[in-house]
């Protein structure tokens, strides 16, 4: 196996869909500025890049027409660099990283940009033309279950109380606010030019979040349920990008990689509890890496919903102190296609920052899947 590293990671600011400062920015513009920002940070010859692999959960309209290629052209990548758009819903841009790692093993390239975009302002969730298959809906309606309902199912199955979800969400905001105050988020953010000026900071974090305020919210998905808008990740606009290359290439070009990719995995699960997806995927990846889950030092576990994250933490018996050190998606936002590269890049940078040995990035995926990546120090 060729050692593959995450050489660098950046992202755009994440802001609320439909009301945030990036709502007026086309997702391809957002993606191209982010990709350009990554390249401007890495002193490499862009001709060396094999492909731009870009994750997007609803690749249509302004995110359609193989938007990865369009973004490559917009970002002035050399014409020789390819572009492919991949869709694994929320796991799309982690999948992009996995594909690059796989291609490298096949000697099909040395360096890749693995990125993700989602403008949930400009392309609605489910897309503009949701046309479910009537037969599938009749026989397996859970195939199309609403995401919030899957969180409710986990909250019920795992008996995760409202208060526990709210506390988890407040903690996410506090960690994110602290990271923001300490400049740990600005490090990874590429400021984005918009018609109304430059946007350089995240827009979803609420430093003053409290259990009291969250406690007043009505359930968002089930009137008798416990999952609220406050304990769910918000609809978000954002983009992320990573440089994935061989360790050899990084060395030759004077890059100082964040982490090495140790193992990857995908695991399916029941669609109606899709949020538990990280459990199967993490177990598989740990086994492939030959490590015990307890030995992982830092973890990014995507917070689609507090109930979902808590269920995974309980099943995997994870140490809360290792998870989402700079806040998770409940605070930062969850631009579907961009999240995978964010959490993988993020945990790689935390691994390096904390001088840790092993890291895990994992997330759940609508339709019933989990995806995981295990990293180790270079």
């Amino acid at each position: 196996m060729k050692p593959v590293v995450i050489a660098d990671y950046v992202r755009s600011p994440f802001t609320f869909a439909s009301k945030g400062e990036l709502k007026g920015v086309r997702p391809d513009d957002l993606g191209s500025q982010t990709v350009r920002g990554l390249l401007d940070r890495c002193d490499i010859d862009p001709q060396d890049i094999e492909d731009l692999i870009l994750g997007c959960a609803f690749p249509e309209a302004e995110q359609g027409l193989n938007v990865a290629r369009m973004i490559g052209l917009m970002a002035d990548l050399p014409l020789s660099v390819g572009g492919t758009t991949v869709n694994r819903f929320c796991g799309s841009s982690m999948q992009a990283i996995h594909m690059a790692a796989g291609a490298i093993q096949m000697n099909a390239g040395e360096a890749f940009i693995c990125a993700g975009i989602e403008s949930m302002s400009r392309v609605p969730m489910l897309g503009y033309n949701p046309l479910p298959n009537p037969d599938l809906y009749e026989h397996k309606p859970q195939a199309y279950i609403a995401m919030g309902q899957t969180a409710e199912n986990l909250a019920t199955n795992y008996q995760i109380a409202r208060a526990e979800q709210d506390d988890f969400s407040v903690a996410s905001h506090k960690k994110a606010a602290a990271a923001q105050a300490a400049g740990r988020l600005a490090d990874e953010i590429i400021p984005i030019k918009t018609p109304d000026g430059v946007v350089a900071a995240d827009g979803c974090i609420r430093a003053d979040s409290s259990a009291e305020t969250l406690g007043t919210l009505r359930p968002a998905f089930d009137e008798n349920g416990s999952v609220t808008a406050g304990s769910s990740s918000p609809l978000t606009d954002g983009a992320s990008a990573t440089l994935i290359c061989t360790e050899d290439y990084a060395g030759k070009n004077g890059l100082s990689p964040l982490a090495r990719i140790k193992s990857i995995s995908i695991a399916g699960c029941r669609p109606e509890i899709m949020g538990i997806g990280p459990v199967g995927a993490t177990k598989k990846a740990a086994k492939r890496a030959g490590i015990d889950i307890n030995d992982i030092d830092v973890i990014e576990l995507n917070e689609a919903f507090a109930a979902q994250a808590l269920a995974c933490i309980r099943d995997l018996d994870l140490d809360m102190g290792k998870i989402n050190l700079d806040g998770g998606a409940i605070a930062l936002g969850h631009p579907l296609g961009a999240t995978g590269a964010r959490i993988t890049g993020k945990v790689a940078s935390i691994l390096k920052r904390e001088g840790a040995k092993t890291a895990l990035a994992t997330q759940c995926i609508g339709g019933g899947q989990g995806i995981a990546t295990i990293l180790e120090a270079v």
Partner: protein
Amino acid sequence: MREIQKVAVIGAGVMGAGIAAHIANAGVEVVLLDIVPKDAEDRRVIAKGAVQKLLKTDPAPLMHPRNAKRIQPGNIEDDIALLGDCDWIVEAVIENLEIKQDLYRKVDAARKPGSIISSNTSTIPLSALVEGLPTGFQSDFLITHFFNPPRYMRLVEIIEGADTRPEAGRVARDFCDKRLGKSVVTSNDTPGFIANRIGTFWLQASVVEAMDAGLSVEEADSVIGRPMGIPKTGVFGLLDLVGLDLMPHVLDSLRTALPSSDPFQDVYRKPELIEKMIADGYTGRKGKGGFYRLNTSGGGRVKEAINLQTGAYAKAVRPGLASVAASKKGSIKALVSHSDKGGVYAWKVMSKTLAYAASLVPEIADDIVAVDEAMRLGYNWKFGPFEMIDKLGAAWFADHLAADGMAVPDFLRQVGSGSFYRVQNGALQYQTVDGTYSNVLRPDGVLLLEDIRLRSKPIAKNMSASLWDVGDGVVVLEFQSKLNSINPMILSMIRKAIDIGEKDYKALVIYNEGSNFSVGANIGFLVVPSMLKLSGVVGWMVGQGQKAYQALKFAPFPVVAAPSGMALGGGCEVLLHSDAVQAHAETYAGLVEVGVGVIPGWGGCKELLLRWAGDTKTPRGPMPPVIKAFETISMAKVAKSAAEARSLRFLSADDGITMNRDRLLADAKARALALVDGYAPPEPKEIQLPGLSAKVAMQMAVGDFRKQGLATQHDAVVSGELSTVLSGGDTDLTETVIESKLLELERTTFKRLAMKAGTLARIRHMLSTGKPLRN
């Protein structure tokens, strides 16, 4: 070029902000300035806060949220230079002469020459406001007195000073009339002008007499309310709305300004009870409550009324006064002649008020027309004081005043056995102060059926609708049923309009002067067929409507709908089937059929689908038009203005909006005539719809709504049927659906729904309570 292109409003209180909002509604840029609060971090915080508040206020001062962007907030210290390119500057600051004059000097230094300045004062005379100010300022200055809330109250009183240049008055009038849609009434520079002079007297007389006669607030409001064509809030309900704490200021200011001989001094009083209520925070709806309050203790919602003698609250009771019952047959005269306490009270209040009004012409206004208009539009009275006197009979009224030992005003005496108004040669005339009659003149561009009715007979007429020749080859179809609900007689008149129109006319305008264009189909007709499960009858009824509406759509000449007020259900479907709409800005359109458990059945589903599909802004693919139509119809979305109706596609982008209600018919007629040359009826359309998979997508959405507690069981049933129609039934993505297939889907679906118990329950509930049933 428009004479007023940019406006400034100074004072971002309720009135100032409301005026600014309405100027923005007219599509005009407006600067809103207020003071810099002490130690403010953001020096524009007051005006900015006012704009934010506008977006949250209900009823909305803005006709569309995006209108807020036309309001530029600022402060009078840093932003006074912004006045330099404003053509009209409205002052709406605190009623303090010194503060106003100080501000005027600042404004005068910053404004451009020839700009118009006006005050929204309600208590300070114009002569005092301009005293000592430069002559240039005086000649550009007038009073424009708006009523609260400025968007909804149609009256603006304009008062010009001795030195106001006539051109300033003309420009301000023209802007208020055509752009802001107001009826401008010219008042003299006298205390309280017209409406508040009479209105305050009336309110005060009503309170005092009720207290003296021992009437309850419910009794008083049942008398001085509906039976007189006065809003049902009556007197005490109105005071709750206005704010009890405002009244002492208004009363004191009138008391000081008016001579000791003025009859107002006799009704002036500050009852101890009201003083105490204000002190205790019972200032009305904005406070803890007023004469009425909603008691929510114990989880209930009980409307309570105060006892005027003891000050204690008790559950409000519906009074059953014989005089009020008598007024239903015999109108105002029967009420004031009745011998029960309600009749006695009505006479006491109205005799004083009407006599007072009659004594004030020409002091406050040159003619009675201005006075009546001011009371109709400033206080929402159905009839002005002189119209009310005519209803009583001027001679009868004078005799009864004399019999009660009250002074008979000279003007009333002069009318003698005649009347204040009369119709002569098809024209409405009023009596002038010199005893002759003059025609009631309408401004250019005002065309009213009310006037046409006096001078001509309808071309055709039945119990529920008429056809009128309004000149230039245009025929008007007028609905006249209860609430203008659509029934078989209206449908037959639609067919007749098209037959007659084809032979003798160039264009058809659908218009009426009711409060509402139409509240929709008369659902009472559905009860019996639904109970007896006569689905064939329902299908036939729906089919008749479809035929009439299709005839409108494909008529061989232009059809223009001109709605004002509510245009719901079948009323909204009229708009959807017209070639063009000229809508009054205050048009409230919606397809609300789901509220009674059915779907739009006269082509509404079809037309809304076609509109979204034909809209270039709709995202591509087969679903977006379906989703848009589904969201709009399944949630019974009602546009709260013509501008919002455009966003919801009940109006199309090139449909016109008229701000002034009185100008609607003339605008609609012009619009229809503009379509005549080279007119060709629309071609039937085809649409590609996704069929079953779209229905599944909508079902999923409804399922989520059910879980969230946002949709009831029967909502799901109705939405399910709606999704069948909107998805195109059994069609496939590769096929096209023609209009008649969509109509057939509407018909069969409507029939199925009408046979359901849940739908029948909704219809019955709506008929008996006027509110939708959540079942």
